[in-house]
């Protein structure tokens, strides 16, 4: 794969100010939605058709020590995207910098990509009848600007750049904080075949609501790699058999008239 670009989310620097969430809405001019406070700061519970990124809040208390993790969730821009594979309309593609983007016109809102995505990211937008997800602000990066969320990030928790450099930085960050956070790890290096959005986590991924080892469901693989490409040939097969039977019955003289003339006693 050519050198791809993405960004690193260093959750140990994130102050949960959600500047990125609002910057994303502002740049993409996405409308706000009705929400209700239910006992957690994560008042926007999940991605929606109008919300391409959220911050998830996770509170834990272990041996009297409180941990409060904030994790930014959005499309992971996989190196080998499942959504791209399953999309019947070929609406999803990878740009030269490795961003997984959608062509809004081609998308018919069939939500195949949502079913296939190992991270459960794409969401259906009712008004536009389209699937929506983060596009890594390709129209901005093409002009040399930072993605809207990365530019808004105050503490440098989000850093945009080449994936390999970010990977090295992530590993260095993990080694820096391993003392304080023994379970610190890099997320996104290998998950689902590797992603362009990398994370420095201070704890196991499940503590952040992330999949421990996300991968495309075997069902989807079976469908994608076996049923879709080969099974349609069965139709052709039975079609051929019927055509063969049509000619061979005529050829062997057991034609229609032979049957027709049968007397009652057959």
């Amino acid at each position, binding site marked *: 794969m050519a050198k791809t670009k993405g960004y690193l989310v260093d959750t140990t620097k994130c102050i949960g*100010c959600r500047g990125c969430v609002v910057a994303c809405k502002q740049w993409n001019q996405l409308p706000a939605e009705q929400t209700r406070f239910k006992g957690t700061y994560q008042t926007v519970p999940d991605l929606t058709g109008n919300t391409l990124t959220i911050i998830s809040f996770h509170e834990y208390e272990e041996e009297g020590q409180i941990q409060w993790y904030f994790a930014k969730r959005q499309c992971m821009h996989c190196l080998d995207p499942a959504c791209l594979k399953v999309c019947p309309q070929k609406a999803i593609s990878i740009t030269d910098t490795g961003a997984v983007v959608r062509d809004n016109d081609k998308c018919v809102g069939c939500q195949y990509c949502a079913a296939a995505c190992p991270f459960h990211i794409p969401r259906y937008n009712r008004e536009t009848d389209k699937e929506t997800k983060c596009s890594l602000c390709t129209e901005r990066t093409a002009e040399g600007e930072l993605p809207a969320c990365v530019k*808004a990030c105050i503490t440098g928790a989000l850093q945009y750049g080449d994936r390999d450099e970010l990977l090295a930085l992530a590993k260095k960050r993990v080694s820096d904080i391993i003392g304080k956070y023994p379970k610190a790890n890099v997320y996104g290096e290998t998950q689902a075949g590797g992603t362009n959005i990398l994370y420095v986590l201070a704890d196991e991924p499940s503590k952040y609501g992330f999949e421990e080892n996300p991968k495309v469901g075997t069902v989807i693989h079976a469908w994608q790699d076996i049923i879709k490409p080969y099974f349609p040939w069965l139709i052709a097969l039975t079609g051929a058999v019927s055509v063969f039977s049509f000619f061979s019955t005529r050829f062997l003289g057991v034609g229609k008239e032979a049957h027709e003339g049968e007397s009652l006693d057959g």
Partner: protein
Amino acid sequence: MKVTRREFLKISGAAVATLPVLGFDLTPAMAQSGTFRIKNIKPVPSICPYCGCGCGVVVYAADGKVINTEGDPDHPINQGSTCAKGASVYQLHDNPRRMRKPLYRAPYSDQWEEKDWDWVYNQIAKRVKKTRDETFITKEKVKTKDETGAEKELEMTVNRTDAIATLGGAALDNEECYLYSKLARGLGLVYVEHCARL
């Protein structure tokens, strides 16, 4: 078109009547998302109106409409970054809930009446003059001690009214606060406060 049950019934009623003629496409072309809409527009630098950090914000406007607001990349305090509030300043201007006309509420009324600026200015000036004239104190007697320590009365010029108060200004510009303070002191007001004290 992926539709909910309710919409489906509504549409299907109509659509069956106009079954798609060959080649006729039902939906309008979707807006092409992801255009770099601020291309070659000169951003106007401003400062975020919210907390006291004083972060730089740039506003992109084209033919009288705000089309984008972001952090000011040159600003030494925030270097282009913004918190949730700073990133939302776009909706301060593009917001139907903004007040757009001077309003007046008559005594005991339960709703606003729209007025024009000239009318409200004159009415306000009348109220200020009436209340000031009724309660203004130019001189008043105060107790003081003369050299021997005995108590005596002193007449002081105070030029004050306690009947008019001013509140606010922490969100106003410096120049506005200066005129506000100058006008208040010129009118003889002493109840001059704002939420720095809260």
